[in-house]
């Protein structure tokens, strides 16, 4: 049986993005768990029923791509295959193939296009 509310994990150190994304997804009936650093990402995924991850590639303590790699190695297959959407100011250190390898569904460039973000999330986890 599916849950009532879809749960999104947002990993981004910017309080602005945190506030904004939370408000936007609350508005369309989704729950957002926010993390400003990468330290607790794996724990949070293990302890919650997360449906999708929005990950900033550049974090103060971690490389977002490394975190996605760790997610893909999780033992729980449902969790290891979580849909991930990357957000970043630029992707100059990564090629498209890097994202494909980690099965990243979308990579959005900041400043965020809200329409794009919402439709990307809806596309991968439905409403």
């Amino acid at each position, binding site marked *: 049986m599916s849950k009532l509310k879809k749960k999104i994990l947002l990993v981004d150190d910017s309080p602005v993005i945190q506030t904004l994304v939370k408000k936007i997804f609350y508005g369309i009936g989704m729950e957002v768990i926010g993390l400003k650093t990468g330290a607790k990402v794996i724990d949070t995924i293990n302890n919650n029923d997360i449906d999708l991850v929005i990950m900033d590639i*550049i974090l103060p303590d971690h490389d977002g791509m490394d975190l996605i790699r760790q997610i893909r190695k999780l033992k729980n297959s449902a969790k290891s295959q979580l849909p991930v959407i990357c957000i970043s*100011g630029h992707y*100059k250190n990564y090629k498209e193939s890097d994202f494909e390898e980690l099965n990243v569904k979308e990579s959005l460039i900041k*400043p*965020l296009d809200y329409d794009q973000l919402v439709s990307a999330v809806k596309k991968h986890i439905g409403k």
Partner: protein
Amino acid sequence: MEKRHKLTAKEYPVYIQCDLTGRILFASNNCICLLGANTSELAGQNISSFLGQGIKKQLGKELDAKMTWSNPTGITKDVNVSLLVPSIDTNEVEIYLTPLYYKERESIQLNKKDFEGFIHDLRSPLNTLYQLVHLSEFEDSKEGLLLNLEKIKTITLQLSEIVHDLEGLVSEGSIMTRIIIPEKDIFPILRLIFQSDMDARKIELKLKSSLKSGFNTVYSKVLRILINLIQNAIHYSGAKTVEVNFKTDSKKNIKIEVKDDGKGIYAEDFSSLTKPYVRKDESNQNPEGKGLGLYIVQRLAEVLGGKIEMPQVKSGTKIVITLPGFISQGLEEKLDTKARSGWKSLKGKEIYVLDDDNLNLTFVSNILTKQGIIVNSFRTGKDLLESLHTHVPDLIILDIILSDKDGVIVASEIIEQLGNKTPLLLALSGKVTSFNSLSYKCSGFDEVMAKPVIPQDLLEIINTMFLDTGENNQRLLNEIQNLPAFDESVLRKIDEFTKEDIREELFESFQSEVEETMKLWISNETYLKKKEIFRTLHTWKSSAATLGFVKMEFYSKYLENKFLKSEIKISDINKLLQIISEIKKIINIKR
């Protein structure tokens, strides 16, 4: 475009303006000797029937000069024709076509009918082609096949002509690009054109200028304006003295005055004369011309963004053409002081060019090499970045849209790699708006130039770049300062999504974001590694962009770039805080 500067005494330019069918709309007076007809005989006639006739009369022998006109697209396009006779001893006649009226037609825009014309012109030969190919399949005789092949060949040529014409429509627009010209370059050409008038009618042509520097304009159009005005003065008002004077007014407009001592034009006639095919007096004893002169002048002045006026004078006629905003701010002084004394500084400079388009790369390289610049070309950002490990040139020209990487990213990588040793960076972009140009400049480019590249413009920009590196920053800061604090539409969009007004909340989170890092930074700058400070600025930038805080976004971008070049000071950060408090004030007012 033809160069008329280097004409020798044996060359005779004539100025004929006709449409693409070859119908002459306007011809200058010296056509008489070259084409064997005077201007009134020529007007409305087809140029091909006159070509070479005058020379034949002059030389007493036939000239092998052929000119064919084609206009397969059905669009009338006025062209300017110069007939050059390189030497009386040879029997070669060169014809140069210069599109004259292209831009205003483009600005009017092609309409549905034009496109229907293209489609029609393309469709009928294509249909014939199809039929011919189809017929050939069933053709048994060799002769029949050969005949069909011959027809196919002709149609293919016809099609390629149409394509050529369409190409012309696309590329000719760029001919309008303004270049800096010293008005004194025009003077010898005017003298040459009116030499026969000056001799035969004993007319004095006074050419004066009080401009301190050249002005930025479309050369061919200004020349055309002057030719028409002088011609009018000589032929219609019987002037004995014509005076041309270039001036600037207090608003830095260029004023071109053409004064004559002829019989003058009444003010009420003036407005009608600026309409096509109207002459002052139909019963005028002087039958020359079709009355297009002033109309053309008026249209050209309009195209150049200027106007034509006829101030009342005691005797004769005075016509003033005002051409606005011709010299970009700051450039005038530069031209005055250094550039005008000759752009010697470019010789021996080293410039790297990055463009994935081979044609562009060769084109730009050639322009630079001709100036004695040492040029190194690169096809990919990767190659360029690698070469910078061993050697850094004086300037790098980067194409913005590259196949492997965005030019902006390549620039940021260059800056990251070279820090304060970063050379001057020039962006070549297909589309330059004031907004994206500012954005490129904040990302570390020193200048931005629109494509297609016009040689003079490129050299002018490069010269200016070498002249004023320090001042660029100050100018950029002023530009940022003039930006709006925020883009209201972005905030409205957020409201739409969240279904409530959260700007205050967003602003607070933004402020805390900035303050947190600020504290850290001020307390112990060495605590944060370079990369982290850079990251912080980057976050501010993207947060500001997300919220539509335009000024903040651009300023952060500017600081980010400045930081990478190791130039940032604490006062820069204080300025950032000022901008934030400015935004805060506006948000509070709105509330």
